């Protein structure tokens, strides 16, 4: 059962997190940015599940946390898409570079 060591799983989650972060910083499309954020959240979920499994297999705390995060991510996605729609209505684009009114 423990044929896959913990570090491997952590590598996967770290890679996922970095991909998400990279996407968040570089893509100008808001929907892609939202997807990147989802990637980062999921990398955290993997971490929670993995630690729960490998360190305290008799407990379920980490899994519960994951469930909460999935719920919150769903809510966050709904809000984010609402924001994106509003942005599109006001700026006719969902490119974040086009919405820079709030600067000095």
């Amino acid at each position, binding site marked *: 059962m423990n044929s896959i060591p913990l570090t491997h799983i952590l590598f996967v989650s770290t890679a996922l997190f970095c991909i998400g972060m990279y996407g*968040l*910083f570089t893509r*100008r499309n808001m929907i892609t940015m939202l997807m990147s954020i989802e990637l980062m959240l999921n990398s955290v979920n993997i971490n929670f599940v993995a630690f729960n499994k490998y360190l305290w297999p008799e407990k379920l705390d980490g899994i519960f946390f994951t469930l909460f995060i999935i719920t919150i991510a769903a809510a966050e996605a709904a809000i984010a898409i609402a924001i994106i729609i509003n942005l599109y209505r006001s700026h006719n684009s969902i490119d*974040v*570079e086009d919405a*820079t*009114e*709030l*600067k*000095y």
Partner: protein
Amino acid sequence: MSNYSYIVWIPLLPLLTFLLLGLFGRRYVKNFSGILGSASLLVSTVLSLLAARQYFLQDGQLNGVYQKIIAFKFTWLEFSPNVSIDISAVIDPISVMMLVVVTFVSLMVHVFSLGYMKGEERFATYYAYLGLFTFSMLGLVLSGNLFQIYMFWELVGVSSYLLIGYYYYKPSAVAASKKAFIVTRFADLGFLIGILVLAFYGQTLDISMLIERLTSTQSAEFTGITTAGFLGVSMLTWGLSLVFIGGAGKSAMFPLHIWLPDAMEGPTPVSALIHAATMVVAGVYLVARLFPIFSVDGVSLQLVTYVGAFSALLAAIIACTQTDIKRVLAYSTMSQIGYMMFALGVSKQGGESGLGYMASMFHLFTHAFFKSLLFLGAGAVIHLVHSNDMKDMGGLRKLMPVTHIAFLVGCLAIAGVPPFAGFFSKEEILLAAFHSNKLIFGVALFTAALTSFYMFRLYFSIFWNKEAAHHPHDHGEGTFSMKFPLVILAICAVVVGFVPFAHFVTSDGVALETHMDLGFSAVPVGLSLLAILLASVMYRVANDKPDKVAGTMGGLYKAASRKFYMDELYLFITKKIIFPLVGQPIAWIDKNIVDGLMNWLAAVTAKISELIKGLQSGKVQNYALYFFGGVAALGVLFIYIWK
């Protein structure tokens, strides 16, 4: 003690009028503002007459002594259990007397102004100001707390400022109002310091408690204030003298009198109310309020005496040379207030030797009536002639018979001819001066003769002298509302002298027996009559005698007609000494150091914000980068550095 709580309505009614007319007068009330103001003041007057009747004739006395009754009191600001600022209404003989005087004269002025100010654009504003003034003056006389007096004192000053500057489009009126305000404010600084000195040593601001503590030689406060000294003078003297400076400023005593003649720029009824009958006697009233304390301190009492006597003499001399009729009356007011002051100064507390106190208050009382009569008469004359200068007048007795008779009564009253009001009060003052200080008595006697002379110079110049053919009479003597107050005040100027004043108002509340001494009265009355005769020779018909006399007087006449160069002296001191030596260095410090510091701070802030404003780029991904960078930095900090 019976109920006097209705007394608070006496000052509150004018306040209500002020608020009503000040807020809505110009738009909604307009021409009814005069009626409204007069009506509310009529109620106040009736209430104060009722209060006087109740106090003096029914229940003011306890075992033959008039009591001090607190009709109303609440603690407003408490600094410590002892020291608090209360708002109170205190009834004692002088405050009741002042209530009657202020409301009555104010009512007469309100009624007179109905005709005099008719057609003015800011008619409602005028009545609003009058209401404010009446409220402040009534609040002042009812005060039982030194600080309350100070507050109302300043309110009175403000309303005087507003009324002097009523014709704000005239530069001279604006200058006069500023002068009055600045000079009296300057004096009030002394008053404030005096209050603080007295309150610091007396440990209270309540007047009756202060009097109690600072007059009994056994009390700790009395020992404290008399042993403490500054520049070799005891703190008691300092405190009282500083308070007196405040009083001298308001009452136009030398050398703070310079604002009063200029204050005549205001409408004439205002001069009658504020600068003749009520506000200018506030200084006398203040000294009388604190008289028990003054009476234990000989030095400050001497100051009061000599300042009063000198002002009386100086003003009388100047009054003989002025040609503006309102200025003559202004100087005469100053002279009469000087009389009241030195009468207080020569007095002692209690009993027979308190004659001066009673005489001073009596003169205040009678003076209010005949001086407001004279001013209103002058107002009626100015209304007809449209000039203040007596050279433009003459022979008016046929054109305005009612004013003529009323003015004559006023002149006889101020000259002290029996049986007019001024005679009685002036005799008491002279008697008090005679018994205590012969020098002051001499000055007073000479001033009395001068008073008769310049008043009848005024009278003859206005109503006799030449024929009044050159006056276009577009309107007659004035409306009924202008004649009516003149008649009422003229009647008062005849009868108020017969009020048994010494039974009501004395320094200790015990009735005083006064008796007329025919031999004593003969000299001043004789001198007055002589002076009147002299004035009639010189001014009754136009001739060249006045010019000849002025010529023989030479320098003295010139100096007096230029008011002894007091204005020039003040200008020299302010423009040549205070401005360059004090004002300019302070202005430099203000501009360069105080403002400079602030400007430097602002410049530094602007610079820094210029440098860092690029951070706020408006690009949301940059913000995300900062955020992650910050989290990473914190992570490094917690994991590797703080462990």
